[in-house]
Structures are given as structure tokens and as C-alpha cells.
């Protein structure tokens, strides 16, 4: 059965959230969720880069790699595309939108090693998505990741005001616990749409 792109979109945000049910993008989720505004900036950068690279990778995979029979090179191509798209975006922002630099541009270099971006391209190959399915899947996953990091950052900010966290659990540990509770909560969405 061909899944409707909108179903994939909703599933990517709620039921199969890339951060909370596939456990991807944990390093930036821990490192960037200290303050709400950095979390939001990172989230927006991820949504943007994720959609863009997924589209480019889909086109490359279906129009160059498959006709030439070189699917084995897919990982190499994907990672080079991601690195160069990020580099290009950085230059464009620096040159034409200097005002965006402080809120958006500084997160771009970190995105190359964000595993969610590569994972989207890999999932799209594994599940043989069509073009529009890929677009909605990537966009939805980006939003899902941004939602997760924003909620975690907000909870961490509140926690800092009230909290007395045990020493060993400070920082990374308590963020993991927050993410775990959030992921339990997101399990409540399961059954809303079914993709597999």
C-alpha cells in the first residue's frame, strides 16, 4: 500500500519521532538544549538542512546512482552532499543574510555531524520512498526533532530554577531522564497513524 505523504509527515512528528523513538541526534540534543533560544535556532537549522539534503540525495540516488548501478557508493555520496550543502549554506548566509548569522549560521557547522541528517537519507533508501514521500518525511522529521529539543530545553531551564540534582546525574544524566519521560509521553501518540 502506498502511504500518503501526509500520513508520513504526521508519523514523523508524533508516532515515529526521530529523536524520541529512533534515538537519533542525541549529541546535539544534549549539548544544545541548555537554553531555549539556542535550542530553537538549532531546531530551525536542522529542519532546513534536513529537507534540502533529502531532496538532493533523492534526486542523486534515483537519477545517477541507480542508472549507473553504483548504490554501494550511496553512503559516500550522501555524506559529501551533506557536507557541501552545509558549507554552501554557510557561505550564502555570511554573504547575503548577515543578520541571520548570529541566530542561525553558527549552528550550521555542527549539523554535518548530526546523525539525523544522514539517517533521513538512509531511511528514504531503505523504505523506497517516492519523491513527495521523501519531502514530507524529511520535513516532518525535522519538525519532530525541533519539537523534542525545544521541549527538553524548556524543561531544563525550569529545572535549573528549582532543582537540586544529585551530583553524578547533573548535566547529561538528568537530560537523559527528561528525554526518557518525554519519549514515554510520545508513546501515547502511537495508534494515531500507522506506517509500518
Amino acid at each position, binding site marked *: 500500500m502506498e502511504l500518503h505523504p501526509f500520513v508520513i509527515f504526521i508519523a514523523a512528528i508524533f508516532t515515529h519521532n526521530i529523536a*524520541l*523513538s*529512533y*534515538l*537519533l*541526534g*542525541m*549529541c546535539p540534543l*544534549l*549539548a544544545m538544549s*541548555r537554553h531555549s533560544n539556542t535550542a530553537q535556532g538549532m531546531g530551525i537549522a536542522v529542519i532546513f538542512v534536513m529537507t534540502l539534503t533529502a531532496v538532493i540525495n533523492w534526486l542523486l540516488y534515483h537519477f545517477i546512482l541507480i542508472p549507473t548501478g553504483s548504490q*554501494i*557508493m550511496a*553512503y*559516500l555520496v550522501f*555524506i*559529501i552532499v551533506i*557536507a557541501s550543502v552545509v558549507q554552501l549554506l554557510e557561505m550564502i548566509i555570511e554573504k547575503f543574510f548577515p543578520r541571520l548569522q548570529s541566530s542561525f549560521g553558527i549552528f550550521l557547522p555542527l549539523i*554535518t*555531524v*548530526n*546523525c539525523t*541528517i*544522514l*539517517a533521513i537519507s*538512509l*531511511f528514504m533508501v*531503505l523504505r523506497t520512498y517516492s519523491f513527495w514521500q521523501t519531502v514530507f518525511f524529511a520535513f516532518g522529521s525535522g519538525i519532530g526533532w525541533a519539537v523534542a529539543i525545544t521541549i527538553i530545553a524548556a524543561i*531544563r531551564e525550569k*529545572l*535549573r530554577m528549582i*532543582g537540586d*540534582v*544529585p*551530583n*553524578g*546525574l*547533573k*548535566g*547529561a*544524566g*538528568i*537530560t*537523559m*531522564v527528561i*528525554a*526518557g*519521560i518525554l*519519549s*514515554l509521553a510520545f*508513546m501515547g501518540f502511537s495508534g494515531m497513524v500507522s506506517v509500518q
Partner: protein
Amino acid sequence: MRISQLFYTRGYRTFIKGFFKENTVCCQLLGLCSALAVSNKLENALAMGLGVVFVLVLSSFVISILRKFIPTQYRIITFMIVISALVIFVDQCLKAYLPQISKQLGPYVALIITNCIIMGRQEAFAAKNPVGYSILDALGNGLSYTYSLLLIASIREILAFGTFFNIRVMPESFNSWIVMAMAPGAFFLLAIYIWVFRIGAKLQPEKEN
């Protein structure tokens, strides 16, 4: 040379630093995505851990040999190409010899490319140090990642499936605790692991939450 002298050599210190003192999962907080995602079963964790050790050691070896020839401004892309080539090799081997595990790991094998442990070790160590020490450093870090994964996976597999390396250890009446096989269980167990490790190793706590 007496054995006790071995503990003071630079090679040993390089190894033990990555292996215990600066445990990749607990202290450097690197490679967490795969640590969380593949630690639901011991066989997956073992395959993933060995894959990471293999890629890490070989890429450290290659980068360390080439370190004088890689121009600084293009180093990241060079690291990435070396790492992806090795990961493609591991992925093909798994597909050929262990198709079952390869299917369960899914895209996570390919995600070794963006596993920050590997990139981090190249950038922080292999790009500046001679070959021998780079390999020891890579081994220490890779093995500490592997044992962390195995520890978490053994608890998760027993609680979630009642098995240990696919051998049943819990009594038949044991109700499997499915949440442990899913994402929340991974988060909670990793949090507990970090907590216990940090207390046990007497590490400095982080400054703020």
C-alpha cells in the same frame, strides 16, 4: 622491563585514558545515538561495538600515517571519506556474513560515519600523533564504547526479553518488560549507567543542569 613499569609508559596511559578515565559514553558523551539505539540486544551491541572498534582503529591508522600530507582546511572532508569507505566495507561484510544482524541494525551501521567518537578521535588525537599511539588511543576508546554498550544491552535484554545472548535465563512466568526494549528504557538505563559510572570513577560533576 618489569610489569609495574608498564603502567608508566605513554602507550599504556594513552590506552587507559580512553578505556576508563575518559570513557567515551559517560565522560565524553560521544556516540550516544547508536549506544541507545542498538543496545536492545546483546548480539546487536556486540556487532555494533566491533564495527566501531574496527573502523576507529583503521581510520586512526590511515589518518595518522597521512597526517603530514593532509592540508588543515580540508581535513574534515578527508576524515569523512576515509571513514565512509571503511564503513561501506563493514556494512557489506555484515550483509554478506551476518544478514540477520545486519537487518536488525538497519541504518545504524551506516550511521557509524557520523558517530562522533570516530570523528572526535581523528580530530583530537590521530591527526597530531604518531601511528602507534593513535592505534592504542583508538583501541582504548573503541573498547570502552563496546563494554558500555554490552553492559547496557545485557540489562536491557534480560528485562525486555528474559534472555541473555538469546539463551533464556528468566523463568517462564517472567513477564517481559517491553518498554525496556523501546526508546524510554534506553534513556533511563543510560542515565543510570552514567550516574553510577560517574560516582564510581569519582568524576567532577558538571557545573549546571
